[in-house]
């Protein structure tokens, strides 16, 4: 591929391209990570495979869009939208998931699959089919020069948001009593129950936490691309690829897998455009062929 024509631009041009690809990969990885982490939290702690997770991600994005459109500051919407999605998640958990928890996983799989269609339908009914764009604060618009390229400020900010969220999540899970209980519940639920902790509240908390993560991902990803009724289904597929490759229930696995998928997809789109998604799925097939439980195995919620 011809890059730049004059010698004096070659270094800046090539370096700029490398920076572009790297940052694009990290942003894509970050969005996959936040959504997949939420899905993994729910599966790792409750053994519920939430097929409605993508729709909740879309609800987060649309809620954020609506809040900003009504005049609220983007950062306030960044806090409120996930809380709204968490509330929706609480309602879902209490009415649909909790009654089915003791049954086979297939029941909750089918129920959440139906939930996905319900939420998608509600989104179209409330917001219609046209794409929506979240209006960002002025200081987050525009680009900034980095090592030979001009890169959007909001995309860089996204990386900081995601890092902060992941850091906060790790602190919560490792350093708080609630977080420790959640982690213990994934490996030794009987012992946690014997200690007098109500497992219903644990499962409820895990589900709500997973939904909050979906909501956060939605409002962060919304300004990056576009908000439309199809965004949930597409992200669900990507997040499943991440958690399957990383290992069902493994948070560390999700981190590694999200970075891997983000880089592979971005590089494939850059160099072999026609076959980008094919390459991602071939990667998944190869990994699973040699490591059927994913990169870090199944069920290790750490």
């Amino acid at each position: 591929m011809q890059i730049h024509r004059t010698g004096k631009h070659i270094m800046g041009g090539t370096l700029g391209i490398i920076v572009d690809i790297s940052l694009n990969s990290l942003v894509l990885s970050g969005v996959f990570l936040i959504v997949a982490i939420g899905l993994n939290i729910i599966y790792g702690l409750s053994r519920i495979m939430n097929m409605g997770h993508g729709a909740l991600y879309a609800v987060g994005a649309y809620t954020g869009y609506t809040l900003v459109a009504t005049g609220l500051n983007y950062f306030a919407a960044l806090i409120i939208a996930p809380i709204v999605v968490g509330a929706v998640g609480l309602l879902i958990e209490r009415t649909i998931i909790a009654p089915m928890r003791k049954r086979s996983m297939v029941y909750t799989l089918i129920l959440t699959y139906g939930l996905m269609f319900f939420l998608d339908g509600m989104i179209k009914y409330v917001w219609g089919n046209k794409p929506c764009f979240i209006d960002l604060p002025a200081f987050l618009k525009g680009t900034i020069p980095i090592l030979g390229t001009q890169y959007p400020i909001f995309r860089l900010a996204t990386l900081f948001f995601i890092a902060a969220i992941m850091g906060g999540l790790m602190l919560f899970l490792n350093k708080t009593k609630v977080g420790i209980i959640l982690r213990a519940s994934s490996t030794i639920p009987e012992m946690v129950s014997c200690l007098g902790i109500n497992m219903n509240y644990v499962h409820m908390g895990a589900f709500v936490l997973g939904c909050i993560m979906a909501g956060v991902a939605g409002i962060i990803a919304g300004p990056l691309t576009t908000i439309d009724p199809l965004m949930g289904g597409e992200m669900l597929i990507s997040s499943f690829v991440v958690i399957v490759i990383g290992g069902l229930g493994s948070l560390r696995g999700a981190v590694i897998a999200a970075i891997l998928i983000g880089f592979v997809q971005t590089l494939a789109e850059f160099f072999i455009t026609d076959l980008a998604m094919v390459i991602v799925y071939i990667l998944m097939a190869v990994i699973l062929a040699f490591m059927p439980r994913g990169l870090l195995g199944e069920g290790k919620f750490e």
Partner: protein
Amino acid sequence: MKRFITISLSLMIAVLLFAPQQVFAEKPVKIGVLVPLTGIVAQGGLEMKYGIEMAAEEKGTVLGRPIELVVEDTQIKAPVAVTKAEKLVYKDDCKALIGVFSSGVGLAIAKNIDKLNVPFLTTHVMTTALYGLHPLVFRSGQLANDQTAVGNINGILARPDLKDKTYYVIVHDYAWGHDGGKRFIDLAKANGIKIFNEDYDKAPTSTKDWSSYISKIKASGADGVYIVFITNVIPTFAKQMSDFGLQGKIKIISAAAPGPLELEAGGEACYGIFGASDWSWDVNTPVSDAWELRFWNKFKTIPSDAAVHSYVGAMNLFNAIEKAGNTDAKAIADALRGISYDGPYGNVRISAKDNCMRNDAVLTETMAAPENPFGAKVYMKVLKTFTAAELGPAE
């Protein structure tokens, strides 16, 4: 008792004598409408439906019978569309099919038209494969890919700021995208316009994050980009180009007209998109202005080119049925060849040579809208009008 029987028998005879005539007089002419109401182009499909509904309402009747539209959602999937078409013809007894957004779907229906045996008039399919494809397959709607390419190339050549640019070509990865990309590149090369990637990039229709493609465009050094994207994706791409600071630096030329509601959502980031189209609400003729107001009053949504060319296509179909004098498929098809309708974008005539329309079109560029009855903030300003002869293809 005798009186009761006499009255009952009289009533029965009256019903038998009069009811069948009444039924035949009011039995509607059913037209099957195939549009995508779900999926990525749901908004465009809805606008097409609006245009056809408006035409049916204004036409009122054909052959003295009311027009009944039977609408089915193609979901922009070929197998679904073919199944729905079969249902419309075999179960609903539709005498013609109209609509269809996607070239892939349109070609799938055309492949089955012998079995369906009704005229099929598409109002949005742009592939050049439709020219003379089948005696029962017609186009009266969106410009075909070759006509769009001619319009865009002529527009580029007429602009000193555009004709010396190097263009990067990206298309949506399906039939229409490939056809549109190839048409533009072939014509560009023939006219001395520089193309960076003659094997053009093909992006999945599900692409939301265009950052990788934008990085490629930046890396190429191209200063123009020719996109063959589904209408509602165009503003998304334009917005992300703007996010990367490229608005105004890399000119976007589009093979398809962006949807008006999507332009509104994209706002200022969507200024500067250049391209040929059948029509824009900036076309200031009495017929167009009146149509726009009627459409706005009825549907309370900004008039779009998807709606207007579906309206015109539907009028051509209804008038052809009138001309045929009956609902026989071959008679309607014969009547469609050469028929024309004078509407918002002038005379639209279906060529007897290849069953596809010839009409004037416009070259537009998106910018801030002047005061208008629709509250639109972004619009496609008309820069130039092309005649049907200019756009071709020659007959």
